[in-house]
């Protein structure tokens, strides 16, 4: 049997479509973990990235944080947090957030830093308050790059959120972990396919958001 047959067998089995271990439940759990982790990471990464980018300071410190964050293995962190903090959502969220903050932070910083300085100078010279210079002049121009940082983070979260299952949480990782344990390869392949599908859906969402929020003037000239 090849991979496609496994996948087909998994998805055509009616038992996989309802109940607490059904695809809709696992899927929405996965989406929920991913969204939570992305929101927390954005709440940390965006403000810090915007401010450091705006004032042009702290680039070296950011690079350090980013490298450190990327060097930490998510799975190792999960086990470590589980041992320290015990059972709960926190040991799952920490590795996901640690994974997602560096791309958001570094891209946002670079995005704001790379905005053409002359409109910023013009805005200040016309008497625009500093907060509006950042939000109304720099951010709209930096938006495509900022969104690409969020997108990278979101994709990484979606694929890594499978590890939540390792410490008995739900999500699509459940199928992969359980499937491996039960030697039920239909389940493993089915779970992996769903994770990949969700990652693609995430890409589509970001494409749509960017179409809606990025000004045509920036999109075309960028």
């Amino acid at each position: 049997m090849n991979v496609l047959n496994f996948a087909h067998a998994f998805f055509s089995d009616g038992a996989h479509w309802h109940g607490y271990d059904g695809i809709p439940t696992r899927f929405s759990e996965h989406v929920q973990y991913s969204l939570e982790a992305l929101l927390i990471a954005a709440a940390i990464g965006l403000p810090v990235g915007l401010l450091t980018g705006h004032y042009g300071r702290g680039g070296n410190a950011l690079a350090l944080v980013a490298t450190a964050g990327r060097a930490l293995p998510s799975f190792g962190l999960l086990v470590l947090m589980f041992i320290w903090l015990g059972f709960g959502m926190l040991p799952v969220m920490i590795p996901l957030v640690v994974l997602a903050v560096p791309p958001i932070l570094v891209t946002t910083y670079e995005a704001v830093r790379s905005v053409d300085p002359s409109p910023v100078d013009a805005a200040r010279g016309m008497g625009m308050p500093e907060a509006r210079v950042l939000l109304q002049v720099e951010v709209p121009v930096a938006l495509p790059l900022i969104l690409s940082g969020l997108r990278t983070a979101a994709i990484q979260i979606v694929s890594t959120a499978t590890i939540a299952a390792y410490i008995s949480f739900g999500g699509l990782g459940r199928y992969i972990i359980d499937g491996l344990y039960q030697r039920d390869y239909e389940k493993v392949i089915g779970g992996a396919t769903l994770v990949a599908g969700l990652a693609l859906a995430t890409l589509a969402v970001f494409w749509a958001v960017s179409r809606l929020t990025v000004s045509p003037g920036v999109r075309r000239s960028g």
Partner: protein
Amino acid sequence: MIRIDGVTKRYPDGTVAVDRLSLEIPDRAITVLVGPSGCGKTTTLRMINRMVEPTEGSILLDGRDIRQQPVNTLRRSMGYVIQNAGLFQHRTILDNIATVPRLLGWTKQKARARAAELMERVGLDTALAKRYPYQLSGGQQQRVGVARALAADPPVLLMDEPFSAVDPVVRKGLQDELLRIQDELGKTIVFVTHDIDEAIKLGTKVAVLRTGGRLAQFAPPAELLSAPADSFVEDFLGADRGIRRLSFFPSRELELQTEPIVAIDAGADRLASRATAPYLLVTDLDGRPLGWSEPDRLTAGAVEPDRLLDFGRPFVPGTDSLRTALDGAVLSPTGWAVAVDGEGRAVGVVSQQVIGEAIRAAHGRVAEQADVGAGR
């Protein structure tokens, strides 16, 4: 009036950008700050809207220290135009121009109506209103920059090398447009440039700054050209300041000769009566110049326009300067300049010698006035 009073800008590393500069910038006129790079001209301009704070000294606007009002209130009362325009690429042309009115709390509708009015004022087609900056040429972008600075009708306009990044033809158009707008609006304009020709063309008064931020000379352009304060100013003005100075002398008093002008259909007797002139200017039936010819090469009824000598560039006596007239004479192979009216019809010709005499006379008058001015 803007008064710059003993202003120094020293940076923490010890560099002095502006050194004890004092200037009185007249109202409703264009004051140009000009000098080589590193002379502190941009720093000086940026101190007027407090983009740079002076280390010493003060700047007064209508007698009040500019630090007495909130910085953003001050900046909104001064239009600001920079090199490359600095437009907001995510906003339409109309919304770019409406920026300061919006900051002042105008409704979107009122701000946009005002913006549309300004597009016309600076010579932009209102069809461009919904476009984005990347869809405009450099010259059009710079016009938007000027419109944006004028949007809230500020009494003061600060312009930092606004026309440096566009090609010479577009630059000339923008300069002419600025002069025209200034005739209509009468703003107090401070204009920074490194281009002495631009300074002389636009400035009511020109401040020449030298490296290290010190004032070398502050005078009207004609005075700058006739009496540079020192060798630095003289060098900065360039080699042909004598010729450029002629721009300030009108050509209207030149004595024009009409005898050497003949129409293309002139008869043999008419040609014969003009045969003493060294050259004759042949015009078409409407009186527009076609070219020069020696009298004995002309045959009545058989003038071939292609075989005539080039007549150079004609000048308009009422509006053009002696510089244009002299240029016309130098360009013409005969050494005679052609004067035309507004419609391009020849009204007379004038030789280099006559223009030379007019230049000497004009210099004499300036010297006389200077003597009177000095109380002698």
